[in-house]
Each structure stands twice: as C-alpha cells, then as structure tokens.
C-alpha cells in the first residue's frame, strides 16, 4: 500500500508539469495570443492593461523563458494581478473557492449515494417494471442538457411553486441572521443547484452500479455466502455491495472534470459566487492572469480528485492494498 501511495504521488509531478505546459501552450500558441492583444484595437483592453500584460509576461522574451518565469511565480503562489481590478488573482480565487467546493462536494456525495442506491435497487429486481422505468428515466436524465434542466427547475420550483429562491447564495437580510440561520439559508439556496448539477452524472453512476452489482451477484463467493446460511440481506448488503462498489469510487472520480466544467454554466444561471462564474467573468473581460490561473486550477483540482479516488480504491480493495503474495 505504501509503495503504491508513493508511486502514485510521484506520478503527480510529471502530471503537474504537463498541466502547466499545456496551459501555457494553449494560451500562448493559440491564434490570437496575448501579444496580438497588444496590437489589437479592441476597446475592451485598455492601454494600461496592454502595458501591464507586456510587463507581466515579458512578451519580448523567448517563450521558454516566459514559461519558466510563470511557473516560478506560481510555485510562490503568485498568480499575478487581475486585469479587472488589479487585485491579486490568488485572493479572488480563494474567496470564491469555498462556494464551488461546497456545491461540488455535495453533488459528489449525492451522486454517489443516490446513484449507488438506485443501482442496487435496479440490480435486485432486474427486468422488472421498476428496473425498466429506472433505466428509461436514467437514459432521459443522461440525455438532457443539465443547464436546461436547471432552467426548467428554476421555472417550476422557484417561480411557479416558490419553494426555493431563484438565484444567489444568500437572502437579502442575510447579515442579520444568526449563524445557524445563515447556514440554513445557504443550504436552502444551494439545494436546487446541487440537485440539478447531480442529475446528469447520477444517471451514469446508477447504471454502472447496477451493472457492477449484477456482475458481483453472479460471482461464486455469493453462492458460498448463501451456503453458509447468511440471510439474503446480509449477502447483498454485507458481501455483494462491498465488492460491487469498488469500481464505482474510481468512476465517481472521473465525473469531477465534468462537474467543474459545468460549474461555469450553473454558477452563472443560479448567480452563485464560485470559481466557475469567476472564470466566465474573466473570459468575458479577457482577464488573462485570471484565465490562466483558473485553467491550471481546474486541472489541478481534477488531478487531486482522481488521486483521492484512486487511493480510496486502493485502500478499500485488499487485493491492491496488500498486493499479491
């Protein structure tokens, strides 16, 4: 286990390197690189910004030197200053990250929990009416564009039924709430977004879980468990589940980049102050330092998420944890 852990952690280094290289390459080599902005007559980019950017990137210097500069700065957590308000990019990101993390972690928990639950239920009654309607439902959910579902949900639950707030993170008189009420207020505001965000991935996970469960229930050791006289419940929930759930952990990890990417649209629709919306604003205002930092951040978060998922899997499966004899 330790050996696996070390191997995996060492593997991060080339990955991080690669992430920075690709990010740099995309920004600087794509048509219309920052240099072109200097010469463009785009009124959105003021002369001040152009000068700032030339200085920031040392655009007269060779590319690899620029790259090293940039990486060196990042290693010191200096992501430059935002073009919009000249505040350090790091600050702007840090103040928005909690919201995005709260939303995405809640979504992951919901996806995992509900997905596993529905998958099991489908596997236990394969080809029943329940199972078929579940499959059809999941197909539809999978196919629906989630931002559209967000709009529909807003229409139904917020506007017509009035159960949830239309947008935003907090209510108008948030300042005057007690800490408990503040927490509940945020939960109430985040409930709809988290549910809607989860729907797409939920469909996928429940299908995988169903397949995994059906496959596991066919394994010989399940028959042996029954031969021991274990009740049906014990066989399913103690033995089958524990085995079937292992690959799901990795798959849930794979849905992280999708969640992060989706946060751009969702945070915009629901007016939530997270890093997704920050990214959108940065793109609209061509705020390059912020854009670059966010691209790297998105990749790093994904990488960490996958790492956590893989390590959890290795820990949970004794065949990996203890290796072959």
């Amino acid at each position, binding site marked *: 286990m330790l050996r696996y852990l070390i191997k995996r952690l060492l593997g991060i280094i080339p990955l991080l390197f690669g992430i920075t290289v690709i990010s740099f390459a995309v*920004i600087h080599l794509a048509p*219309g690189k920052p240099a072109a902005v200097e010469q463009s007559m785009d009124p959105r980019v003021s002369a001040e910004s152009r000068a700032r950017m030339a200085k920031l990137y040392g655009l007269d210097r060779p590319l690899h030197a620029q790259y090293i500069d940039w990486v060196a700065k990042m290693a010191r957590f200096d992501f430059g200053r935002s073009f919009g308000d000249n505040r350090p990019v790091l600050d702007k990101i840090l103040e928005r990250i909690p919201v995005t993390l709260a939303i995405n972690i809640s979504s992951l928990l919901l996806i995992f929990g509900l997905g596993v639950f529905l998958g099991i239920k489908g596997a236990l009654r394969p080809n029943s009416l329940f199972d078929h309607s579940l499959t059809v439902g999941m197909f539809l959910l999978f196919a629906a564009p989630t931002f559209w579902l967000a709009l529909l949900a807003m229409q139904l639950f917020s506007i017509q039924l009035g159960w949830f707030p239309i947008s935003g993170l907090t209510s108008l008189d948030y300042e005057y709430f007690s800490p408990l009420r503040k927490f509940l207020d945020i939960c109430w505001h985040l409930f709809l977004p988290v549910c809607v965000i989860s729907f797409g991935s939920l469909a996928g996970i429940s299908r995988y879980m169903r397949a995994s469960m059906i496959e596991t229930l066919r394994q010989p050791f399940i028959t042996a468990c029954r031969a021991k006289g274990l009740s049906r419940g014990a066989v399913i929930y103690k033995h089958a589940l524990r085995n079937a759930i292992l690959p799901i952990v990795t798959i849930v990890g794979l849905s992280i980049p999708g969640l992060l*990417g989706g946060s751009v649209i969702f945070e915009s629709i629901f007016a939530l102050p997270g890093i997704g919306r920050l*990214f959108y604003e940065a793109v609209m205002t061509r705020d390059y330092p912020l854009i670059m930092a966010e691209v790297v951040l998105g990749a790093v978060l994904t990488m960490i998420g996958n790492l956590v998922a893989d390590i959890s899997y290795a820990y949970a499966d004794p065949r990996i944890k203890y290796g072959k004899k």
Partner: protein
Amino acid sequence: MRKNPYLTAGVVIIGLMSLAAIFAPLLSPYDPSVIDHANLLSSPSASHVMGTDSLGRDLLSRMIYGARISLSIGLIAVGISVILGILLGALAGFYGGWVDTLIMRFADIMLCFPTFFLILAVVALTEPSIFNIMAIIGLTGWMGAARLVRGEILSLKEREFIQAEQSLGASHARIIGLHLVPNAMGPVMVHATLGIASAILLESGLSFLGLGVQPPVPSWGNILIESKSTLGIAWWITLYPGLAILLTILGFNFLSEGLKKKLG
C-alpha cells in the same frame, strides 16, 4: 427490427434530425431571421407552431436551422477528434516504447482539464466562430478514440497474420492502415456516436453562454439565452430547444447502444 430496438430507434431519430437539417430551407415555414414586430413573444398557434421569440422570429424555423448548425458542428468536431485519436492511438500502439509512453502521458494530462475550461480559455483569446468551436472541441476529444485504437493494436500486434506481413516487408503504414486500424473501428464508431452527442452538448453550452454560435445564426444553445429572461413568461422558448437537444442526445445514445449490441 425487434431484435435491436435501440439501433432502430437511434437511426430513426438521428435520421429524421439529419433530414430536417439537410432540407432546412424546404421545411422551415419562415425565414429564421425575419423580425416581426407584430408578433413578439407570441405563444404557439396555428401560424407559429412553436411560437415566436422576443424579436418575433418563428421559433420552429430557428429550431430547424439550429439543427443544421448543431449537427454539423457535432459531426465535424468528432470527425477531427476521431482522426486525431486514430492517428495517435495507432502510433502509440504500434511503436510502443517511448512513443507510447509520451502519447499516453499526453492523454492523461489532457484528461485532467475540464474540457469546458480549455474551450473557454481558447475562446477568450480568439473570436468565437463556428470553425474555432469545431476545432477546439475536436482537439480536446481525441483521447478516448486513441485509447481504444491503441488497445486493439496492442492485442492484434502479436497475431500471426501481422507478423507474416511484417516478414514480407510490408511498410508500417500499410500494416497499420489496412489491417490494424480497421479492426478497431467498431468500438471507435460506438465511441464516436457518443462523442457527437457530447460535442453537441458542449456547443449548446457554449452558445448558451454567448461564446459559441453567435446570434443571429440560430443554434439550440443560443436560442436558450433568451429563456433566462423570459422564464415564467414564454415557456416555449425554454421547452423546445431543450427538448430538441434531449431528443438528439437520446438518439445518439440509442445509436451507440444499438451499435454496441450489433458488434457483440
């Protein structure tokens, strides 16, 4: 037909969509860009089957032309990613060694990036155009096809008929192109149909944010921009484009399930 309902359903849905896209000028009742001040935001009626938008443009017509845009973007973007994927996967699988490691590492790194972030970053640098969208979606989606092709080639490489060809002195390109790659095409096709679906989703998301297909060119995504402001007032602007996207994605999903079943 009964034996593979998924395939049938998929072919029917996508077929109809494609026909609508191809014959758009013949099928759409109105010119999609004609503004009609008399009929702003009118609900569905006999003259406007899907209603009109805030500029009085007929929604049905815009939807039909939107099909054209979305489907072609999806198709071409996936075409790019499949070609790129086959190329890189074939090189990685056939030559092995450091070529393989390099390409697979590259794929691993690319997979770390939320696609949307990369696409948005590129769009920030360039003006959003249909060509750019197709290119960037294509360039960020090759990893899946590459993995599949590489896997097939790795397992086929050791087979006798390949070694026979090699001993006869066939060129690498011939072996790869004529024998190895065609065997991998099945799974790649399945992957590609799903890829078109996700490309369409990506494009509609981008257009919805205003960074994809630019108005007045209609795309299902950018029609939905208006729904934000007309929520609660004009349900048809929200419902129909979303439904169209849903149906299309469903169609491609069915198609891929059907192909999977057919290939065994």
